[in-house]
């Protein structure tokens, strides 16, 4: 890996945020700043494979109170590509089991000289709670079913890369909308950038209330499929469900799995995303997941680019 200093420019004046807690509160302009920066980082770092040590001397802490492989690795790698140091902290190795509160744990980590905390937690609002209680920057890497802003951004970046735009596209989020933070971040981001959003899934997992926010609510995938430019197939989050919202996985797959029969009913250039981890055979069949319409692996690269952009914007290069 070669180390070369590439001038990525300075943080745009319109970017003033110290934290990234959600996409709901971001403007279209702010969303575009992140997406444009992600593209710039991707280009400048050889598809995110080379180092751009513009954050050297800074330290990011990953505070993951919930399991994650992809997101945590991606944030760590993004920080290291920018030359920052990273420390990892997970609940299994923490003193939470000794009765320490979440905020005390975070304050202790911060006291070690941390510039940014990347936090994942099973409870909505914890990133915000943390931002109110620490002085360093906070990046939400997923708070329960609330938001997962960098996932929303990388999904949107993947769509923009493949289809060249967001405005005017019809994007369907399919599956467990109720328990999906990815769905919420996608809805806010896509709506602000001018897409038409459909949420589709079993009626027990798709609230009618989404219509009040200008989102189309559908229960029958086959009727909406021919209109869709993008499908984002969300995982059924068994771990967040307190009661069984549908009779069986088999029935779910029958009604909502994206397979080659359904693909034949879709637009020729339909783009298929899945935030992962994917349940092959439940929301997507292997032939579709690995086929030409799928952007599942590009999403992973774009995740790195988005997280580099976010860290750079949040920590303000050169500060």
């Amino acid at each position, binding site marked *: 890996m070669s180390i070369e200093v590439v001038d990525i420019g300075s943080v745009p004046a319109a970017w003033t945020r110290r934290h990234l807690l959600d996409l709901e509160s971001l403007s279209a302009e702010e969303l575009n700043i992140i997406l444009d920066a992600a593209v710039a980082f991707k280009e400048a770092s050889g598809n995110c494979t080379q180092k751009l040590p513009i954050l050297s001397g800074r330290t990011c802490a990953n505070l993951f109170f919930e399991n994650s492989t992809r997101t945590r690795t991606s944030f760590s790698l993004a920080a290291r590509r920018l030359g920052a140091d990273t420390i990892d902290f997970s609940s299994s190795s923490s003193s939470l089991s000794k009765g320490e509160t*979440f905020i005390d744990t975070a304050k202790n980590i911060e006291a070690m000289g941390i510039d940014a905390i990347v936090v994942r937690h099973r409870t909505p609002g914890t990133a915000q709670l943390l931002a109110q209680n620490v002085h360093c920057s906070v990046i939400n890497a997923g708070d329960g079913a609330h938001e997962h802003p960098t996932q929303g951004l990388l999904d949107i970046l993947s769509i923009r890369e493949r289809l060249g735009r967001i405005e005017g596209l019809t994007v369907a989020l399919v599956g467990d909308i109720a328990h999906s933070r990815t769905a*919420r971040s996608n809805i806010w981001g896509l709506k602000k950038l001018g897409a038409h959003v459909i949420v589709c899934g079993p009626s027990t997992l798709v609230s009618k209330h989404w219509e009040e926010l200008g989102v189309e609510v559908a229960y029958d995938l086959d009727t909406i499929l021919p209109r869709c430019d993008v499908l984002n197939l969300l995982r059924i989050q068994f771990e967040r469900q307190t009661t069984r919202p549908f009779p069986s996985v088999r029935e779910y797959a029958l009604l909502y799995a994206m397979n080659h029969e359904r693909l034949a009913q879709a637009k020729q250039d339909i783009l298929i995303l899945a935030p992962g981890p994917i349940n092959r055979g439940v929301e997507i069949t292997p032939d579709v997941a690995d086929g030409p319409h799928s952007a599942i692996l590009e999403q992973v690269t774009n995740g790195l680019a988005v997280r580099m952009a976010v860290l750079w914007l949040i920590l303000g290069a050169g500060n």
Partner: protein
Amino acid sequence: MIPQEGNYAVRATRPILLEGGRVIDPSQSLDRITNVRLEDGRVAALDAIATGDEDVLDCSGKIVSPGLIDMHVHLREPGREEDETILTGTSAAVAGGFTSIACIPNTEPPIDTQATVEFIQHQAARADKCNVFVVACVSKNREGKELAELGHLSQAGAVAFSDDGAPVYDAELMRRALEYCRMFDKPILNHAEVRELTQGGVMHEGVVSMILGLPGMPAVAEDVMTSRDIALAEATGGRIHIMHVSSAGSVDLIRRAKARGVRLTTEVCPHHFTLTDECLRTFDSNCKMSPPLRGQEHVNACIAGLADGTIDVICTDHAPHALEKKMRELDQAPFGIVGLETALGLVITKLIEPGHLDWSTALAKMTINPARILGVHRTKGTLKVGADADVTVIDPDVRWTVDPAKFRSKSTNTPFAGWKLQGRADTVIVAGRVKHKVAAEGATADGRRTAKAR
């Protein structure tokens, strides 16, 4: 009665003349400017004139009300003294204008025996702040399985029964409790919630919970249990009191049940007629309570229910929790907020000032109505001659800002911090003794010395 000198006599109280206030006593449809004389711990006379032997309290510009009663207070002692004690809770009560409170038995241990009832009574007497009526458990150990000894508890002084914190879940147990309590003419106070529908819930289920990704507690969970309780009360002829009503559906069910003569009463808390689920957008655990803050249509229904008499009582559901417990992730933080020191200001600011309720209607819901439900209306909640000398003098115009740092309660878990309210208790008299007085500069003192003598 002339005070005597000497150690013993210092304890005797001089008569008090409340002079020139607007006396509002809904128990006798009274609303006029007059004087009230208190003597020997009783209301001695209305329209009294000064005779020179009394302390005169100038009440001009103030409202003189029967002492306010809060029939839904969690005092936490015994068991959770880190949240509240009987001393701090009753201090908060008098500071908020309440001369009587009823304490809910979800303590550790729960109040389900004569001994625990008497423990509360003893601690309340030691605290010597306000009257404390004991609500005892419906079921042994508050487990919802077998009836507690409701007859013995009644003899010990329990005024009502409740397993609050949890609903009386078993329909057969509720039926038996309602039937059995007819013998003592005591009400069952029930927390109406179908748990299967609220499992894991943190807030009201609606658009806001959907956006925030927080597990919801749908209004129908309250409505279904309210409906069951109404049916059981109707079938048994027992007295049911639905606690802290918060949903439009429940208000409607109660309105219709009352119209056909079911022995049914109900209450609402200030947070349910002032706040909506939008407050949760900040993820503030001080907005987490059960039943939860609901949508505006539910708030409107609660106000309409208060206005048309469907809702009999305004109570606080004062639920203190130590700061460290509330400063947790939202799903880990306990349900509930403190309410004793903000309730009166919220009633005046949010119900009386906007014209939803007139003074007499509002005060009835904080005086004679709860007194009747608890069966203490001969001596409490009224200024009839001979009643206990419990009086709340209200300054209806004073504007003040809620500052939790000044609470007498041991806990500060309130969503109203920083709110600007109008009206509060100026002087609070319990059994003829001034227990709370707001001095001009806002400090308080022992009123026996500050009641202005002439």
